């Protein structure tokens, strides 16, 4: 294999903690009795339910119609009967409108689920339309609607598509397993994205702590002249969009700008595989690979889970809790969201369910900042987290803004490394929220 190894400046080295699941093949999770499908699983406007209580639905049938451009449709992951449409708690922390479906266990396919043809015959616009109709969103966790990424603002052109296979979050192995077990789908999805955007250069970036994934994807892309598989140094946050673009192309996305500003569109490898599935079989995004792991679960696994399955059922399939559980996290330990309840559904962005023991979940008491500068050294954006944080804690959000608080990508490297255990990224988040609120206020005046 002739693979370049690339990286970015800054970053940190949290323990990988991927040993528990990185060698485990993806297993199909049991079909749940009931699915709870949120009408908002993406960044943007929520969907309007287009089914009523009592309706029969089929697998792959659209049940939520997007309202607005930045939105994405929602489909049923099971066949059965709609038994409720009501607000339910989801992993975003709030309650959103959900369609609750009683599974009839028949897995009857919707008539709409059929092959859309081949890449050779589909036009760029047809590919974009398939992606939009299949409810495909960024599956790395951010869940930005993919078709919106592909709709470039007038005047912008892109020449490169990058697939993100870094999976730099500790513990998570869902992308890893996907790349090992189904590299063809990843490459196919990339080719679809490249055709949709009419670009001739594609990258697939994979951290070099996953040599088997690198090899599998490299072999799958061997005959594709326009696709380069690159190894990325194992360093957090290697999979952060702007850091990944810099590593692959040497281009710096301008502050406040989008990847398209430097001619690049980035998608997760899981998203690419979902696109391949949508084109080949016509199945919209109704299931995903979820890594269930951590010391707090008996049998860590990579499960293929139907969207809407509750965390509770998924954890029970992994043998249930082990020991004293302190935290249940949707996503990885660096950027995932801690959940107070397990009665929430798996959604399109649920890359992992991480269960930490009481011991691991304890956060150390913060002490005085000793100005060691470690947070400055690890910040991938070259910010001074200690200063932004201290301004934020003093409610001096104007000064925090001057110190470029809004450029923070909230990767958490600063809080991770801090020897004084200060709540750096937490307080920067507060500052960002305040600054955004003040900007909105200023605009509305």
């Amino acid at each position, binding site marked *: 294999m002739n693979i370049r190894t690339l990286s970015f400046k800054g970053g940190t080295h949290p323990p990988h903690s991927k040993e528990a699941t990185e060698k485990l093949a993806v297993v199909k999770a049991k079909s749940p009795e009931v699915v709870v499908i949120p009408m908002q699983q993406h960044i943007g406007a929520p969907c309007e339910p287009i089914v009523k209580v009592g309706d029969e639905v089929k697998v792959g049938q659209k049940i939520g119609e997007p309202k607005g451009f930045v939105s994405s449709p929602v489909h049923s992951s099971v066949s059965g009967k709609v038994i409720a449409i009501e607000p339910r708690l989801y992993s975003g922390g709030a309650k959103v409108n959900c369609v609750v479906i009683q599974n009839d266990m028949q897995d009857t396919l919707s008539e709409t689920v059929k092959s859309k043809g081949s890449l050779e015959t589909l036009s760029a616009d047809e590919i974009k339309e398939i992606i939009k109709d299949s409810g495909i969103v960024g599956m790395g966790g951010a869940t930005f609607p993919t078709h919106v990424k592909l709709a470039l603002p007038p005047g912008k052109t892109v020449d490169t598509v990058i697939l993100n296979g870094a999976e730099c979050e500790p513990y998570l192995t869902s992308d890893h397993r996907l790349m090992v077990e189904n590299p063809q789908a990843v490459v196919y999805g990339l080719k679809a994205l490249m055709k949709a955007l009419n670009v001739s250069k594609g990258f697939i970036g994979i951290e070099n702590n996953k040599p088997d994934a690198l090899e599998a994807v490299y072999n799958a892309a061997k005959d594709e002249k326009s696709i380069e598989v690159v190894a990325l140094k194992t360093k957090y946050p290697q999979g952060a969009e702007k850091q990944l673009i810099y590593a692959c192309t040497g281009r710096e996305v*301008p502050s406040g700008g989008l990847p398209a500003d430097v001619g690049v569109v980035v998608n997760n490898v899981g998203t690419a595989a979902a696109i391949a599935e949508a084109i080949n079989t016509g199945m919209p995004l109704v299931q995903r690979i979820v890594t269930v792991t951590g010391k707090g679960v008996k049998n860590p696994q990579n499960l293929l889970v139907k969207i809407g399955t509750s965390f509770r059922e998924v954890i029970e399939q992994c043998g249930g809790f082990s020991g004293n559980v302190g935290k249940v996290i949707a996503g990885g330990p660096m950027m995932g969201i801690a959940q107070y309840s397990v009665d929430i559904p798996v959604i399109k962005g649920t890359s992992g369910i991480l269960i930490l023991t009481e011991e691991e979940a304890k956060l150390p008491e913060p002490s005085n900042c000793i*100005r060691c500068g*470690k947070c400055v050294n690890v910040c991938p954006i070259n910010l001074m987290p200690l200063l932004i944080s201290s301004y934020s804690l003093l409610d001096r959000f104007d000064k925090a803004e001057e110190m470029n608080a809004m450029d923070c990508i909230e990767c958490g490297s600063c809080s991770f490394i801090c*020897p004084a255990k200060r709540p750096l990224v937490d307080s920067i988040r507060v500052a960002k929220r305040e600054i955004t609120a003040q900007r909105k206020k200023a605009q509305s005046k």
Partner: protein
Amino acid sequence: MLDSTMFRVTSSPHIRSGETTQRIMLDVIIALLPALFAGIYYFGIRSLIVTIVSVVFAVATEFVMQKIMKRPVTINDLSAVVTGILLAFNVPSTAPLCMVAIGAIFAIAVAKHCFGGLGHNFINPALAARAMLLASWPVRMTSSAFLTPGTDAVSSATPLAALQAGMLNGMSGATAATATAPTVPSIMDLFLGNVAGCIGETSALALLIGGIYLVYRGVITITIPVTYIGTVAILSFILGGFNPYIAVYHMFAGGLFLGAIFMATDYSTSPMTTKGQIIMGLGAGILTALIRFYGAYPEGVSYSILLMNVATPLIDRYTMPKKFGEVKRSA
């Protein structure tokens, strides 16, 4: 069935590195041990007694101050221990114990806690205390107080004082240094620390070992020590009449290694970025060389570092790193 307990919810990240303030301070203490052993070896057991007194009073002062100010007591972070050791390293082994105690109290109470405690002091507490002691007890802190290593005899001069005296007497630095006068030690003695001086400053070798350990442990980077010592060496070479001997002599003499490795790198009082640290090293180096060559006082390290401490907020302001993405927006 899983029970329906409520789990802990906090903002991410949910894992933290093993680095702690206490571990960093412990590393500094470990790095200071070779120099302490050298001090005991050359100046006797009293070096240890002075160090213990300094540490005990520093820690006790921290405890009392935090009690008085109703703040959490943080003596476990070991930062007061570090200050105590550094202060002891900056006084002669003959220093009266009450003087050392007053220095330790001043360092912690005034230089550290009056400005907000750990991380908020704007000058190095140990150096501030040394400056205070030097102003208050000049005789106890200068030439007549220094022992000749291995003896109980009071030495007439430290290496830098001897060099300066030679220069003032009209001899060129070169002749003073190469003359066989007993007051001017050899380079090897300077490197090993077999010369008159403060407890922890004489052995460049021992301090270097500690410095290498700190760099290995990632506690400090080499930026400040290398630019600082390098600047002093180059300027001494030039100001000393392009004499390499003088340059090497100045590198190993006085408190340069102690200052450059352990004091100028103090987190609270030195710049955070590499660019800022280079300025810190250059500035302290220039000041040290100027004081040593043109000042009345032979040692220049502590005042140079104190002056650069005061300049640190300014340096930090002007060396803010360029943020990622601060590039021209493409049309």
